[in-house]
């Protein structure tokens, strides 16, 4: 044995034992194999964990924005204050500001507290009305303006509570944090609890979050996504109306007609590169060309739509070309063989067969465009917009917001309640994306043919 040690160590290991037992080296190699495998598994696990973590974080933070706390009050609409002349003239009613409506709500709340004998310790009158949202008078005003005949009577009105009170029932605000908060006191929270026990205060599903316009910094409880959803919808319409025909036309040319020469090569290279240009550069293009040069209005869906159209075009062209390529040549040859012209072959036979693939690509392109944020920031869509854009086509030129931009906008605000709103908006955005992608998958499964 001793003289064998002079040979190489590997030889020792190899000759030492039986074939059925692994030597050290083999064991090492197998251990390293296992390590490598585990490393791979960890990587896959990390990827899935990241997805789960991302979605959970957004869901946990955002789900509460779909619920909102209201106080139901019987508000007396005092005719002497709201309509001095008594003729229900809408013009005159419009001149009555929210400052007139605010005391009505405060009175109704004070009355309710008094009737039920709710003890309010250490709260001034201002503190009591502080649990009502600053938006409440404005919504009461719009209720009255919509139906002036209510003046003089008493309406049961769901009043928005202040964002902090709402946060208390969602766990964002606690007694301890209220102690340190300048905007809310523990006594106010106790009052809210008392109202809840009396059955006036409840937390329910919040449709306004989906339909109401944005609200100012101090009124997170009233902020909604109405304008943003409408703006995004307008932009998607423009993107669809422009990029689908242009993209399909360009693809047909490149796939079916283009001679292989320098110009075609240039176009192909351009499309490939455009797909990789950072989105913010498209924003700069939009700002320079559509706003500064062509003089289109800022924050308008038309500019956003044009910019997103240019971004979506490469996606659609690539998908359409793949779909056209997938149609077997036998179809073309059969059509040509019975005397169809090339154009007829394409428009009557190839294009309908490629349509599912084209639509799938278009929907995926639209989904990408829907989530795009950076270029929209540059063309001024971050502006604070409270007015709904009017119906198309004029509405395309009205200022509007967009879903992803609204998210960004809300994250820039001071009140932590806006973080909840931003996460809620993301949930809405993700739901739209899931629907669009689901539709694309469905289309592909249902109609895509394999030859």
């Amino acid at each position, binding site marked *: 044995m001793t003289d064998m040690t002079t040979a190489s160590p590997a030889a020792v290991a190899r000759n030492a034992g039986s074939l059925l037992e692994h030597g050290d080296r083999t064991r090492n190699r197998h251990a390293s194999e296992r390590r490598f495998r585990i490393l791979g598994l960890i*990587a896959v696990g990390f990827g899935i964990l990241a997805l789960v973590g991302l979605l959970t974080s957004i869901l946990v933070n955002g789900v509460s924005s779909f619920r909102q706390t209201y106080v139901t009050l019987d508000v007396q609409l005092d005719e002497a204050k709201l309509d001095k002349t008594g003729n229900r003239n809408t013009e005159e009613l419009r001149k009555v500001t929210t400052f007139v409506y605010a005391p009505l709500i405060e009175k109704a709340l004070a009355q309710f507290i008094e009737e039920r004998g709710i003890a309010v310790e250490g709260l001034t009158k201002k503190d009591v009305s502080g649990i009502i949202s600053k938006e409440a008078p404005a919504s009461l005003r719009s209720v009255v303006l919509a139906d002036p005949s209510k003046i003089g009577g008493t309406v049961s009105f769901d009043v928005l509570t202040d964002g902090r009170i709402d946060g208390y029932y969602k766990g964002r605000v606690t007694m301890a944090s209220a102690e340190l908060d300048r905007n809310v006191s523990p006594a106010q929270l106790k009052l809210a609890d008392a109202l809840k026990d009396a059955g006036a205060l409840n937390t329910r599903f919040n449709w306004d979050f989906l339909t109401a316009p944005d609200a100012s910094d101090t009124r997170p409880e009233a902020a909604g996504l109405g304008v943003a959803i409408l703006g995004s919808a307008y932009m998607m319409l423009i993107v669809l109306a422009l990029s689908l025909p242009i993209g399909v036309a360009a693809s047909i040319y490149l796939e079916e007609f283009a001679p292989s020469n320098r110009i075609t090569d240039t*176009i192909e290279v351009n499309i490939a590169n455009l797909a990789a*240009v950072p989105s913010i550069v498209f924003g700069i293009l939009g700002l320079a060309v559509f706003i500064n040069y062509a003089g289109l209005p800022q924050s308008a869906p038309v500019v956003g739509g044009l910019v997103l159209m240019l971004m979506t075009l490469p996606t659609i062209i690539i998908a359409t070309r793949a779909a056209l390529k997938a149609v077997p040549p036998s179809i073309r040859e059969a059509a040509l063989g019975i005397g169809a012209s090339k154009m007829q072959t394409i428009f009557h036979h190839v294009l309908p067969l490629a349509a599912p693939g084209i639509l799938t690509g278009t929907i995926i392109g639209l989904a990408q465009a829907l989530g795009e944020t950076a270029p929209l920031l540059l063309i001024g869509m971050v502006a604070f917009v409270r007015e709904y854009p009017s119906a198309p086509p004029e509405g395309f030129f009205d200022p509007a917001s967009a879903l992803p931009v609204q998210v960004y906008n809300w994250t820039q605000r001071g009140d932590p309640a806006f973080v909840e709103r931003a996460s809620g908006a993301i949930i809405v955005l993700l739901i739209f994306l899931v629907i669009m992608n689901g539709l694309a998958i469905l289309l592909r499964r249902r109609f895509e043919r394999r030859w």
Partner: protein
Amino acid sequence: MTPSILALIVLALMVVGYILGRQRALSLAKRDGVRLHSLPGYYGQSVALFTAVPAFVLLGVWLFLQPVLIENQISATIPDSAIPEGGARSLVMADVRRIADGLDLVVEQGNISEDDLAVMRADISNVRSRLAEVGVALGSNVQPAVFEAAKSYRSIGKTASFWRNIAVLAAALGSGFLAWSRVRPAMRARNVSETFIRALLMASSFIAILTTFGIVASLLFETIHFFRIYPAKDFFFSTIWNPQFRGGSDLGILPLLWGTFYVSLVALLLAVPVGLMIAIYLAEYAGKSLRSFAKPAIEILAGIPTIVYGLFALITVGPFLRDWIAQPLGLGDSSSSVMTAGLVMGIMLIPFVSSLSDDIINAVPQSMRDGSYGLGATQSETIKKVIMPAALPGIVGAILLAASRAIGETMIVVMGAGAAARLDVNPFEAMTTVTVKIVSQLTGDTEFASPETLVAFALGLTLFVFTLGLNVLALYIVRKYREQYE
């Protein structure tokens, strides 16, 4: 008549053209008792195309050229005396445009008639308050010369729009009529309209070139403008980024490039190993069931908008890193940091790296694997010693593509990296990137012609050149590699 109404009229004419063309072909064929060369619809189609397309092309060109031509004409009439000290002619022109828009509003609301406006003079009546009534706020009183320019801007604009309408309608009717009168049974209508459509298809494919041209032109034009008022040497080599609202800013790109590079580096350090391992595991080890579940799950990450990642960085990752790592270790107390943005961006890039590498690994021929197994190599040895070297060029291409994504990414860094431009090596400090500064310089309130705003175009051009270079290189490498095994 607005352009959109004009477009609708042209579309209506197109429909009329189709019907008339078809009818003429049919009736002529009936009268002469001959057969049509093409199906009757093609005669209509050719008339319709000749009606609409020239009119739309003319409308497009007109809308494109009108602003420039009018601007130049008006700009020349403004005397030098009307331009304030240290101001630029372009600023005065911006005022002219705003006043003209305001006057449109005043007239529209019926506060003043066109005739009154024609004799209105800025030195007598108070134009500023009139405009304020309709919501157009002006910084100072209107100078007579500027006001006159605004009035002629309006009137030239009006005349131009009038002639535009006439010209477009004339083009539609004229060429439509010409096409209609050429309709004969013997006319090869199908060939005519097919050639026409083919030209339209070709024109659509030129949009891609036009877009690239638009990007390059808008970036280049304003960048040249920027370098005229700010020295290029300072921009490229200064280490200080300190824009001032009142001018006298330091606009050095180096801190921004450093931030961009650092964030991208962190992102790639996370995304490349993880993405690569995922690709290897899914391609070589994973069973069918795991693969069919894990691959789509990871690709979902690629479909999530970047704003979602941005919010994730802002509300989850940032505070977590600050409270659990940065503060206990005394490395800083900012929740937005290079690490925050880098890690989140890394997660975003994982599917990008993994799906590209997956394709590349699958493209390595099975014979190479079999050869390696035959020599007694374990699976991991085969991967490390045979597959990786064979796939290396493709993987390098994938990494370069991911790097170009990282450099151009905006929302994650806007929400996660911070806004402080600094040259630091501590990854838990807030730093800023080129894209963050493009956003902040272009969404601020500074005057458009100031270097503080124009610098965004120079930054954009830098970004464009970098990402384009990386992409071209990556595509070149990937293409070269692909040929190897085909």
